[in-house]
């Protein structure tokens, strides 16, 4: 059992006009086996939360705490957080020319586990996971994210989630830009990891569409850098019918 606890988290980004607060006191608790959907309008701070948890240096934590099983996540470097069991599926995965997918996956797995995976079972694991995500075997010889279509990039992110077996996975708008077929494949991948492991999922999305494929246990509505409303899956349905308008009017 793992628990990620976010308490009163305030985050700023540096701008030309000085630091600009984005997150204004976020409280969230994610436990193993739970899936939390974070929904909200553009600019509400959803992606900032994802990148702050992963440790992107662009974001300055101005106050608050984040702990994973009591350990201070904010004191860890980016790679230490990943090795502690955090995983961020990125909205815009980065190209790394000249580094093959297979080399990248093996290097990451070795770093996370602290030892190189046994070669034969590892190759099998990779091939099986790729097949389930409908990825061509030649994919593993391509350079990381280079020339990938939007759908290929997202499948590659979920492939990593399957292989690296994180305790807490943050999926940052994994559904954005996907057609229905790709969305279904990616969602099936996420659901497989949920069924076969004890992963806690923080699913960040602008649209309710992905929640038809990945059933959340909790829904949090993000507005203006904090959680404005929380509930169960029924909250997502309400948002689908009503949109975010009722949250936006009073905050003006």
């Amino acid at each position, binding site marked *: 059992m793992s628990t990620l606890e976010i308490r009163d988290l305030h985050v700023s980004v540096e701008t030309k006009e000085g630091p600009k607060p984005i997150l204004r006191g976020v409280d969230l608790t994610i436990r193993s086996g739970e899936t939390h959907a974070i929904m909200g309008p553009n600019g509400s701070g959803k992606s900032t939360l994802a990148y702050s948890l992963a440790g992107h240096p662009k974001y300055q934590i101005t106050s608050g705490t984040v702990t994973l099983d009591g350990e201070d996540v904010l004191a860890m*470097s980016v790679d230490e957080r990943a090795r502690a069991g955090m995983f961020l599926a990125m909205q815009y995965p980065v190209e790394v020319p*000249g*580094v093959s997918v297979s080399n990248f996956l093996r290097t990451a797995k070795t770093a996370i586990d602290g030892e190189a995976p046994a070669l034969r079972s590892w190759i099998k694991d990779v091939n099986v996971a790729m097949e389930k995500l409908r990825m061509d075997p030649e994919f593993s010889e391509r350079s990381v994210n280079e020339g990938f279509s939007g759908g290929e990039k997202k499948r590659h992110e979920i492939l990593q989630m399957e292989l690296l077996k994180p305790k807490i996975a943050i999926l940052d708008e994994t559904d954005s830009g996907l057609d229905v077929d790709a969305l279904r494949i990616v969602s099936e991948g996420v659901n497989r990891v949920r069924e076969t492991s004890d992963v806690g999922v923080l699913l960040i999305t602008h649209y309710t569409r992905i929640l038809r494929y990945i059933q959340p246990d909790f829904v949090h509505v993000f507005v203006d850098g904090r959680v404005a409303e929380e509930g169960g899956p029924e909250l997502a349905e309400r948002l689908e019918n009503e949109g975010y308008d009722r949250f936006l009017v009073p905050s003006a």
Partner: protein
Amino acid sequence: MSTTTQNLSTDHSRATADEAHSHGVGATPESSRAARLTSFEVGDFPVPNGREEEWRFSPVDRLAPLFAADTDGKLTGHGVLTTVVDAPEVTVEIVDRDDARLGLAGKPGDRAAAVAWASAPRATVVTVPAEAVASAVTSVRVEGVEGNDEPSAAHILVHAKPLSQATVVIDHVGGANLTETVEVVAEDGAHLTVVSVQDWAEGAVHNAAHRVRIGRDATVKHIVVTLGGDVVRLTPDAEFVGEGGSVEMLGVYFADAGQHQEQRLFVDHAVPNCKSRVTYKGALQGEGAHTVWVGDVLIRAAAEGTDTYELNRNLVLTDGARSDSVPNLEIETGLIEGAGHASATGRFDDEQLFYLQARGIPETDARRLVVRGFFAELINEIGVPEVEARLIDAIERELAQSMSEFASALGTESTAGGDFASDVTEQTDGERAILSEPASVTSADEKL
């Protein structure tokens, strides 16, 4: 996330021929590369002062011994020793400087090259007989004589006769002050690979004029690898003399603190239906590391059906390093297959680093992966396994050095919230020239 590497490229495949087309630096003294002086006479080249186009990026004070200003343009030192391990099918001779086979691959194009021509007492001639296929690599080792740093000259001719096939690796090691001529003659239908490795010891100063002549239907791969030495300046010229020729010019360089590594290429498309590809990649690290790449391509009016592309990329790993990159393309005919170039100099991409670290890969390993990846494709194209393996080792050593410096630098500052804000770094005047090109030039997005 946006990549922080600046990517500037232009595609001239649809350029029209109404006038010569050049976009290098405004200060280019001649209107065309074709008008640049070449001569066997040292006296035709004044001693450089650093303001000449050929020398404007160079530390001429450090190269000065190779200009032989006080000795009437001649050097008499014996600072290098040349030894050859040849393939059984290949012949090797040491010949006097008046041998009729020397001087056939064009003329020197600057003072140091003319001094090399005038000074080398003898030349090493590697000949691949007609239709011979070399079964092994021929290795030429040019080694600095220990304790002898007299300015010296050397001359090597690699001569591939018609329909022959061979690989020759010229290796430069030890310490020296050397100006060198490397003539490469590929006769009709020959397939020749020539690799020049500059793996000098610290303190070495090396100027080398490579003059490559490509015959009808000949295929030449010319590769330079520059790692060591204080100052290394190479001027590879490739000239097509028969139709259907093809040249691939590859370069890899890695400059550390205080090192100056310069390569000035000139591809002369004088005859129809020839193909040239130039790909040079370099990494820089440390205070005062300086690399220069100048790529001149001239498509003369007669060279219809030309297909050319040149690419230079530089990866700046630390502050304090400088990279200059200047592609120049002159086109005198519109009846060509294609012509283009690309030049980009970027800082280490911190978003790549974040992505790899977010997968648990420690920062030093992540940096290593990115730099290896930067060079990987080019190294795979070399096609000479022993050179590839050695180059990979050398890059690992360079990286190990920068990683230890990096780690000690990290000790003094917090790892969280490090400096990820960097964007484009050195923008050379060549790149600026491209940026300010007329909008009619098509921009081609292209991959490393």
